[in-house]
């Protein structure tokens, strides 16, 4: 090799090395910034949620959103300098107000959130109250969508009903977040009231239809962004595609979920089941996006499919920690994306949009309830119960912002509406439940399918001991046993179609079980009683307590 060629090669190698080192340095810098941002977000979101819940008695999600607004790039974030790096949350010049890395974490959080929402969907309640639930859910959805969309046109935010911005504002207004209502109804012991179950069934329909509407809207906006125009023929095709994807995936999911979990259970490890299930949720989320729909649709379908299997409680319990860590980050990042100056311009629009969102649910859900079996009071309770918008509205708004279908101003409006409806629902709902029944005529209580039998023991300690042995015995029989978040020590026992509850109160163990599943519950308790008597018999053969005591403690002094 001649000297000049050698020199040129050396120079190339040096240039590549310098470039790689610079790239590695910039990666390290990027990751350092991301880690610091995440640290700040996790701490502030958690503290915000805690302060709102503890001192203002408001849902923690509001605290997380407000924390995001305070630390975001449009407020303190831009003014917090990091030595050698720059502002903690610098305003991004292109695209979203937060970095792609941070938005990616929020997207994963939204997938986890919707996967868990799907898992928590009670299809049995929905089936039992499907007719009235369908009417309530559909009424609320239609009125919310139409009013939300028209509101954008009235205020000149969008030129026509089919404009992506108008469609997004309609969609943002539809999705009820029933979590807050469910918490209030549980606290007031009204969850199993006719209004309570109607709200829950309505919320399932609302979720399902809302996700389908989102699928259609995302599909339509993608066509528009690709330079196409939307006429009703195109809308029909997009709607059919979205519905087709939804129906095929949900039907396949519900049909194959048992077989899938059956295969997963062969690993004999709950960790494997949970990890693979979450992996599949992420996979279906990706497939959903590839099919031209939103990622949360796939995640929700995966959750819904697994909601009727015996591993659902295991998944919920195991993913609770991931949820607790990620979901506040999602709400906080959504809060960070609020640009106050852009929002100020649309403040009047935001207030009217929020008022219409409130009216839409009260009228849209209340009227079908009134026309079926509820009186005015009952219909109002149902309308108020369906009022809070939450995570889905924010996710849809985030999708709208990231696809540039809505601007900073309308994103701020969506956050404002979410906050107002979430703030207003709890006090109004609590107040509405004071007073007489909400049914127009006294309707006989829904047939209670479960029977309760109890076994009494000589002391709470013995009952507690037997309860622990029962839990182990059921696990040994390959049942999934999960502790429920209730005051009394309660467990849900599930395997395939079998599902019942064990609970202990003092010296009594109660079993709440459908009549056709009593055999297994009674046999297990019977066998455990026998092993308990064995144990008591064996304890008589132990060395004297004095001898054991002196062996254990005798040499300590």
């Amino acid at each position, binding site marked *: 090799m001649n000297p000049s060629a050698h020199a040129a090669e050396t120079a190339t190698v040096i240039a590549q090395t310098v470039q790689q080192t610079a790239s590695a340095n910039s990666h390290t810098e990027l990751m350092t910034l991301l880690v610091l941002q995440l640290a700040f977000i996790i701490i502030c979101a958690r503290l915000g949620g805690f302060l709102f819940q503890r001192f203002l008695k408001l849902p923690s999600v509001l605290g997380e959103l407000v924390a995001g607004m305070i630390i975001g790039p449009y407020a303190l974030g831009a003014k917090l300098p990091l030595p050698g790096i720059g502002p903690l949350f610098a305003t991004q010049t292109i695209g979203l107000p937060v970095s792609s890395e941070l938005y990616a974490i929020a997207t994963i959080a939204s997938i986890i959130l919707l996967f868990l929402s799907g898992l928590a969907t009670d299809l049995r309640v929905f089936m039992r109250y499907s007719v009235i639930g369908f009417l309530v859910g559909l009424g609320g959805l239609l009125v919310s969508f139409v009013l939300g969309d028209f509101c954008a046109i009235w205020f000149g935010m969008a030129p026509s009903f089919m404009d992506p911005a108008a469609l997004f504002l309609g969609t943002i207004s539809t999705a009820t977040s029933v979590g807050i209502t469910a918490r209030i109804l549980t606290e007031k012991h009204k969850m199993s009231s006719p209004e309570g179950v109607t709200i829950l069934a309505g919320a399932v329909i609302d979720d399902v239809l809302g996700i389908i509407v989102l699928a259609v809207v995302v599909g339509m906006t993608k066509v528009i962004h690709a330079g196409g125009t939307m006429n009703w023929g195109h809308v029909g095709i997009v709607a059919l595609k979205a519905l087709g994807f939804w129906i095929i995936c949900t039907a396949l999911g519900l049909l194959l979920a048992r077989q899938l979990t059956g295969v997963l259970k062969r690993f004999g490890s709950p960790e494997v089941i949970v990890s693979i299930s979450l992996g599949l949720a992420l996979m279906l989320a990706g497939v959903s996006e590839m099919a031209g729909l939103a990622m949360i649709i796939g995640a929700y379908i995966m959750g819904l499919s697994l909601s009727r299997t015996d591993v659902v409680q295991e998944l919920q319990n195991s993913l609770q920690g991931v949820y607790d860590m990620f979901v506040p980050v999602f709400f906080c990042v959504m809060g960070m994306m609020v640009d106050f100056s852009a929002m100020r311009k649309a403040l009047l629009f935001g207030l009217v949009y929020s008022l219409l969102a409130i009216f839409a649910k009260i009228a849209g859900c209340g009227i079908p309830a009134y026309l079926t079996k509820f009186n005015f009071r009952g219909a109002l309770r149902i309308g108020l119960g369906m009022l809070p918008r939450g995570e889905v509205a924010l996710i849809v708004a985030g999708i709208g912002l990231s696809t540039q279908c809505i601007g900073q101003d309308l994103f701020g409006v969506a956050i404002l509406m979410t906050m107002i409806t979430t703030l207003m629902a709890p006090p109004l709902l609590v107040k509405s439940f004071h007073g007489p029944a909400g049914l127009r005529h006294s309707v006989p209580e829904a047939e209670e399918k479960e029977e309760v039998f109890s076994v009494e023991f000589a002391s709470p300690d013995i009952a507690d001991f037997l309860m622990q042995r029962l839990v182990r*015995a059921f696990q*040994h*029989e390959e049942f999934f046993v999960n502790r429920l978040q209730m005051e009394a020590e309660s467990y849900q026992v599930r395997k*395939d179609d079998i599902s019942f509850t064990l609970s202990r109160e003092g010296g009594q163990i109660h079993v709440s079980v459908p009549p056709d599943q009593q055999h297994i519950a009674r046999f297990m308790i019977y066998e455990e009683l026998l092993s308990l008597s064995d144990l008591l018999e064996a304890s008589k053969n132990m060395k004297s307590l004095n001898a054991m005591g002196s062996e254990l403690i005798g040499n300590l002094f």
Partner: protein
Amino acid sequence: MNLKKLLMKDSILPELKADTKKGVIEEMVSGMAFAGKLTGKTAAIQAVLAREEKMSTGMQNGIAIPHGKTNAVDQLVVAVGIHPGGVDFDSMDGKPAHIFIMTLSPENRAGPHIQFLAEISKVLSRPGLRERLLSAANADEILNLLTT
């Protein structure tokens, strides 16, 4: 639970000969051993008898479900026996037992063992089934009655 997977024709004894509790248990365990499902007959008999000593598995309406845990089996093994004349099995209702469902399960292995007993008991509580089992002519008919 799929009972068809666990109930096998070669472990169905349509006409038990023994006329004592211990005799029925021995005869059924022998039937399992003859079908090649056990590694130690004596250990299996002892396991079932030990369980019976704690509390009889003679239930009501002529049904008994003797069972035990033993390492003479490496998975759940089931035998069904019918004794048309009935045997005193210290049943809860004091009546003789006619229909016997015996299960043996490994000592320290997890599995749906009690669940099987519960499921088969549920099947046996169907009205009219007990009478049809008692008048069944052969193992095929018994298997058919229990699994359809």
